[in-house]
């Protein structure tokens, strides 16, 4: 199997000077000569950050983090990049090798690299203040660990808001015995966003200017299929049915391997070939809906872990997730890989092209989705309420009975309007367990949260074709630990949209950074996440895989490191706590994490057993 860079990558391949830098465990105080691209910040040429990426591999890999200017479809912005490109270089590793990654910081501020999804000693996980002190300006830090896995992963900064500005890249590990799937082409498609705005400005606006970035809010002249009663009900609740994405286009230009939709990202194929696309969502805030009109996609891996192949027409990829899919383009000379943002404000675009320059038609953006009462955890009323066909209907039944809100099966097809809000509190804090801190940081409590791992995601519930959901994922290789969990840990995802506060169990990270979530060595725990907000949250655990409790038998519960908890719903995973140390655990929406939705998971080591 051969690795192939997309055409655009070849065009802009630049050999980076590999300087010998002092290596050694810890922060070597080395001041390498600053690379040219990181030196200047001139708007006239110097210091430009390239789009697309090179490839690095081997036992020793040098990475340089620097600042520069980015230019995307005519818009300029400040960027932080690894080795001068956004995304940073593709890091190729082999399972079983030892790797040493020397990361030199050319910024005037601290930086870090977190290896997303990799099993590493905790001190090399790359989270400042949790796993290590960060990489100081003009210093080199050496990460050193054995590569214990294979699959599609990525890496990114965990310092400040650098991830938004370009500090991320793909990481692919070849399995020990070679790739078991024979494919003719193997491509990385890393999705992300570009904005000319400084991320601190975005954070300030999220805190102060409500809905600052949305240009899709309900208005007198919108075309949303909502009745006057529904509109009044949303206003009465002080919530908005268009709160799908906190930051979106036109603030963001969505990127495929660093390129805007007009910048011609292209993957070549010969008709009849099997193409593997390694999809990585390296965005800061954007869920993408990925489809290739005219082609089915066979999902073979999720978050780097092989799954039983499942064929779909579309999938939603959460921030931080990776999916490997196989496609077999043949009939047409080109196919569009369409990656709409979940709120349908824009798209990232790439082409599968049978010859350079071949282009397929790009379908127009579909109508923006709206939140429904079900997204507030009001799961009464089955049937066709515009969110999910049969499977959801069934789930909602279950919830209805749980919650004691029996409005009758097959009742009104539009629960949101007909059942209105009479007598219902959207913030009944008595529904919360006692360990949740009730306060201004919680603006909603899900009334009857049900597991919605069968939900394909906002906007895709009636897409009209096959869409991936978590229940369709089944681990290909059986899980090592299939013990029944010895205890349940329930965590509530809480928030306040107006104040832009986000938290676990009502406490923002700054309040609980010394009160970690603790696991005993090798403890098997079932973790239930309950989403008491109206937004989908991609929750990420560092250092370990967990297995989604998604209806598969324990041996085949899919291993993941990100789980999306749908609005007003729950999701559950099992975890074997066998990686000692302190690990970050957070919402992978960058501004939610900085808004407080983060915790530390502490796993005791075997030596800590009494």
């Amino acid at each position: 199997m051969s690795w192939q860079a997309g055409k655009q990558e070849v065009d802009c391949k630049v050999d980076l000077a590999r300087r010998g830098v002092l290596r050694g465990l810890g922060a070597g105080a080395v001041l390498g000569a600053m690379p040219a691209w990181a030196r200047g910040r001139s708007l006239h040429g110097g210091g430009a950050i390239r789009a697309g990426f090179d490839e690095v591999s081997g036992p020793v890999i040098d990475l340089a983090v620097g600042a520069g200017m980015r230019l995307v479809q005519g818009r300029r912005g400040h960027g932080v990049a690894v080795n001068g490109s956004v995304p940073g270089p593709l890091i190729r590793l082999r399972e079983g090798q030892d790797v040493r990654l020397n990361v030199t910081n050319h910024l005037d501020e601290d930086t870090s690299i977190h290896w997303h999804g990799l099993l590493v000693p905790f001190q090399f996980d790359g989270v400042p203040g949790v796993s290590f002190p960060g990489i100081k300006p003009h210093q080199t830090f050496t990460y050193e660990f054995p590569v214990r896995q294979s699959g599609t992963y990525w890496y990114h900064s965990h310092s400040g808001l650098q991830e938004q500005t370009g500090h991320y890249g793909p990481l692919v590990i070849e399995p020990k015995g070679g790739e078991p799937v024979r494919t003719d082409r193997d491509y990385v498609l890393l999705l992300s966003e570009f904005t000319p705005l400084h991320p601190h400005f975005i954070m300030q606006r999220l805190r102060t200017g409500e809905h600052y970035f949305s240009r899709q809010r309900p208005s007198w002249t919108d075309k949303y299929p909502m009745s006057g009663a529904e509109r009044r009900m949303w206003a009465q609740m002080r919530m908005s049915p268009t709160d799908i994405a906190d930051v979106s286009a036109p603030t963001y230009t969505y990127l495929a391997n660093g390129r805007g939709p007009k910048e011609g990202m292209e993957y070549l194929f010969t008709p009849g070939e099997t193409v593997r696309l390694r999809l990585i969502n390296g965005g800061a805030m954007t869920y993408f809906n990925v489809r290739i009109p005219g082609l089915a996609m066979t999902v073979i891996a999720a978050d780097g872990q092989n799954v039983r192949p499942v064929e779909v027409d579309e999938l939603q990829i959460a921030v931080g997730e990776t999916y490997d899919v196989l496609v077999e383009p043949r009939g047409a000379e080109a196919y569009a890989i369409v990656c709409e943002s979940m709120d349908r404000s824009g798209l990232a675009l790439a082409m599968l092209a049978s010859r350079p320059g071949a282009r397929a038609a790009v379908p127009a953006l579909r109508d923006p989705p709206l939140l429904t009462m079900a997204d507030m955890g009001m799961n009464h009323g089955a049937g066709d309420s515009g969110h999910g066909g049969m499977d959801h209907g069934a789930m909602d039944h279950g919830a209805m009975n749980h919650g004691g809100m029996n409005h009758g099966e097959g009742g009104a097809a539009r629960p949101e309007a007909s059942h209105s809000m009479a007598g219902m509190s959207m913030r009944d804090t008595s529904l919360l367990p006692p360990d949740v801190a009730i306060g201004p940081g919680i603006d909603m409590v899900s009334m009857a949260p049900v597991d919605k791992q069968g939900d394909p995601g906002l906007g895709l519930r009636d897409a009209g074709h096959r869409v991936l959901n978590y229940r369709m994922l089944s681990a290909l290789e059986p899980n090592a630990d299939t013990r029944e969990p010895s205890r349940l840990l329930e965590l509530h995802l809480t928030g306040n949209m107006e104040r832009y506060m986000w938290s676990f169990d009502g406490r923002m990270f700054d309040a609980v950074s010394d009160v970690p979530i603790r696991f005993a060595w090798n403890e098997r725990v079932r973790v239930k996440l309950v989403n008491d907000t109206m937004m989908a949250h991609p929750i990420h655990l560092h250092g370990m895989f967990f297995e989604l409790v998604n209806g598969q038998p324990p041996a085949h519960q899919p291993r993941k490191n990100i789980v999306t908890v749908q609005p007003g719903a729950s999701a559950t995973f099992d975890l074997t706590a066998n990686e000692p140390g302190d690990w970050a655990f957070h919402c992978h929406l960058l501004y939610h994490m900085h808004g407080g939705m983060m915790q530390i998971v502490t796993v005791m080591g075997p030596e800590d057993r009494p």
Partner: protein
Amino acid sequence: MRRRVMRSLALLGSALAAAPVAAQDHSDHAQHAPAPVPAPSPDPGHGAMDHSSDQSGDADVSPGPTMETPPPPEAGSGPPRAADAIWGAETMAAERHREHAAHGDFPVLWVQADRLEARMQDGADGFLWDVQGYYGGPTSRLWFKSEGEGTFGEEVEEAEVQVLWARAIDPYWDLQVGLRQDFSGPATTHAVIGVQGLAPYDFDVDAALFVSHRGDVTARIEAEIDQRITQRLILQPRAELSVSAQDIPGLGIGAGLDRAELGVRLRYEIVREFAPYIGVERSWRFGGSAGYARAAGEAPHATSVVAGVRFWF
């Protein structure tokens, strides 16, 4: 059409069967007989439907506890300090402090001129400002407010500044306490207690009770709401009501309902932060206050056409 993909997948299956899977095993039972791989279900409805009854359905397949219980003693206690042993406690402490504070309760600055306008009314054209802002985190803030108005070419008729400390008492409401200083007429200082926030139906409300250093008690409530006509064109009805517990002749205020204002402004957000507007506002003075106004040769009621800008940063 799928033949090729399926062939690849068959290869995948056989490769996995042949070689022990070296995936992510950190435990001792790394070697597993490959489980039979059922044919992938191409129909998403299937997988979903089978398990979709609710979570208890999953629990049957993958049994586990359903009640939350505390961690065992083996989970340890105390703050997370694993990194101290590797990088040094001092090094980590500084970084920890900095990093943790950045996730959650960090301060921001916000300043808004909600109304900055010229007012055209019979006889005397005037001006008005209504500015507020805060510095602080999401639940604890220092507020600044200033309002005033006057007639062009004359002295400022009314001007006040408030400095308030605010604490969130609810997801949508802040309690505010502080001081108000009036800079027109006889200098007056008030103690202030009020609430400010978002009421159901998205009304922005600011209500406060004032006790002056002379012991006079007054109160004021303002409410406004944004009605989006388009994403940029916004109609903002606004109402304000003032009451007084007593006659305050020095300030021309009568006991009871003192004054009311009702206005509507239409703004266009060139950018979110900057929106010129036009509008019309009607004001009334009542009871004793109306009497004081007449005595001063002013009309107790007035209608103004206003034009101004709303901006914030």
